[in-house]
């Protein structure tokens, strides 16, 4: 069993799914010979051939729309959008068709497709290569929105997403594509969708996050532990549908909560979580619910990226203030 990166786990899960199920197809820009600009489809063309691993014309609306057609016909397309900043032309197909086909036809047709894409910062590239728009998709009924935070989660959750009978937006945090290696067994075991994962148990404060920000959040939790503050860290993983129970249970225990995400604060998905706490968790709250998020500005070009991104320091500051709040 090899230690692999998150992007390798993504490739491994796709290979596994294709091997297990002939209806699984991979498509997108440069997914063939090039193996995807991040190599997330590396090796698939050689192994499964150009019918099942298909380079498409440069058109994201087409990629999403033809996936709807394929899915309605019983295939399970796993389509790559090269960067989240280029998914917008596909939004119409996602919100008006993929997420609605089953409901619209009262179950006659369905849409078991996965739309994979890198999300967030990580490669210091020009504009549009660092978007975090998970909240946009989380607002669309009929979708699942899944964000893995490690190689093994990527493998398990992607397998689950591909096997899921409904459309899944699968967001891969660019910043941790290659940041860590983990032993991941290619055992074909899917992880559970629709639930949060507790990455670290604690009693003093709940830190809620997902995707790449789990790293900074865990680092902050480490530092807090040195001060004797025991933070529970939750990786939401499936943003939609939201596993509210796990969150409420944890905050019920700790009474304090900081939510961390890379996306802009206003309208970010942290707001939804805080709102759930303000409603169903209010009694347990002993301190204001803080959000540490990207600023409400356009993600800057790479030189100032780090000033935009929630830092360990910002998380720590918010967490300490929350813990010390009386």
């Amino acid at each position, binding site marked *: 069993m090899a230690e692999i990166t998150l992007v390798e786990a993504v490739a491994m899960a796709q290979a596994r799914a294709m091997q297990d199920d002939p209806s699984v*197809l991979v498509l997108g820009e440069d997914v063939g010979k090039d193996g995807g600009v991040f190599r997330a489809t590396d090796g698939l063309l050689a192994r499964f051939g150009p*019918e099942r691993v298909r380079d*498409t*014309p440069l*058109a994201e*609306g*087409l990629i*999403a*729309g*033809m*996936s*709807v*057609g*394929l*899915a*309605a*016909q*019983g*295939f399970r*397309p796993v389509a790559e959008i090269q960067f989240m900043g280029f998914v917008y*032309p596909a939004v*119409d*197909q996602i919100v*008006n*068709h993929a997420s609605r086909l*089953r*409901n*619209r*036809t*009262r*179950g*006659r*047709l*369905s849409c078991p497709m996965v739309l994979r894409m890198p999300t967030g910062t990580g490669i210091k590239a020009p504009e549009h290569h660092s978007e975090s728009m998970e909240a946009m998709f989380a607002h669309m*009924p*009929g979708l699942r929105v899944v964000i893995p935070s490690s190689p093994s989660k990527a493998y398990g959750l992607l397998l689950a997403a591909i096997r899921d*009978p*409904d459309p899944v937006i699968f967001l891969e945090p660019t910043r941790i594509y290659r940041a860590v290696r983990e032993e991941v067994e290619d055992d074909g075991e899917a992880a559970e969708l*629709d639930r949060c994962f507790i990455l670290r148990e604690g009693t003093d404060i709940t830190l809620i996050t997902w995707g790449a920000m789990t790293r900074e959040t865990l680092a902050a939790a480490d530092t807090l532990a040195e001060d004797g503050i025991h933070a529970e860290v939750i990786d939401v993983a499936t943003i939609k*549908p*939201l*596993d*509210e129970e796990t969150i409420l249970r944890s905050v019920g225990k700790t009474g304090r909560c900081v939510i961390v995400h890379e996306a802009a604060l206003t309208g970010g998905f942290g707001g939804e979580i805080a709102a759930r706490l303000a409603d169903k968790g209010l009694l347990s709250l002993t301190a204001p619910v803080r959000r540490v998020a990207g600023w409400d500005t356009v993600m800057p070009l790479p030189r100032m990226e780090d000033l935009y991104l929630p830092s360990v320091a910002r998380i720590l500051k918010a967490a300490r203030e929350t813990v010390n709040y009386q």
Partner: protein
Amino acid sequence: MRAESDISPPELDPNRYWPVLRYLDKAGIAIAPIPQDLDDRDLLASLYRAMVLTRTFDQKAVSLQRTGRLGTYASSLGQEAVSVGVGASMHKDDVLLPAFRDHGTMLWRGVTMVEILQYWSGDERGCDFAGPREDFPVAIPVASQAPHAVGVAMAFQLRKEPRVAVCILGDGATSKGDFYEAINACGVWNLPAVFVINNNQWAISEPTRMQTAAPTLAQKAVAAGISGSRVDGNDVIAVHDAVSRAIDEARQGRPQLVEALTYRLGDHTTADDARRYRDDAEVSARWQEEPILRLRNYLVGRGWWTKADEEALIKEIRAQVDAAVEDYLAMPPQEPTAMFDHLYETLPQALSEQRRMVEDGDG
């Protein structure tokens, strides 16, 4: 001055590359020899019947809307030959990807009148076709069904099935990027897909010249490197011929674009008043070209249709439509919880509370 030819390139003459296929003139007189397999009494009578059914159904739907028993409705008045011609050209196991005005095609394919009425009354069950299970439901966002046709056609190609995806779009739809993306992709992969442009000359209040400077819509195929053709969309024989041949070609992996020239004789929908933006005189002139009388004239001229046939047909169709309307009006409403029950295959835990609230009438 060009290196490889000293003369500047010639103007492209659309009529040379995209001549209009037409067998019957306005009056229903054959102006060209009709292919034998099409010049068949039974076939033509069935097309005639389907067009009359479509028009009768449309009229009934409009009157249901006017009397508050149906939602906004888009009639296909005047365009029956396109709608029926496309339906008749498809094999049963081909897949239709309609726009929202293709009732004739859907009826031919086995979608029931009750289903169509249900849909336009605002009831999702109308899209759960008992008949053509794989056909797509109506696409409301213009041209958004075109990329689906790419996927459906690719599914056929992958499974090596001799089936064709048939997508119908309006003239207005040819302004949308997804239309071009779709035909272009079909060219790249030689997919078994046919795109029929129902050019009824209007997109709500905008005439086709506000949509494009291209003198024909068929020529948009050139952008995709696929074949385009034009047909008189008020001549059902020509539509049947052109679309059948396009479908045959597509079945061999040569995707096709067919522009059917017709005219929207009615309002855009029951919510529209076309007199705001177009002259009655234009509409009256176009009534002279409408497809149903044209075919009847031909049939009568051929001695294939009598007054008695006509009367019997009208009677039969009225009864059929009335029976459908009765069934439609008698349909019980959906359960309120239905809005949760088809969203996902299995209701996610996260939605159970909301569903329960609706179930409890807490909504």
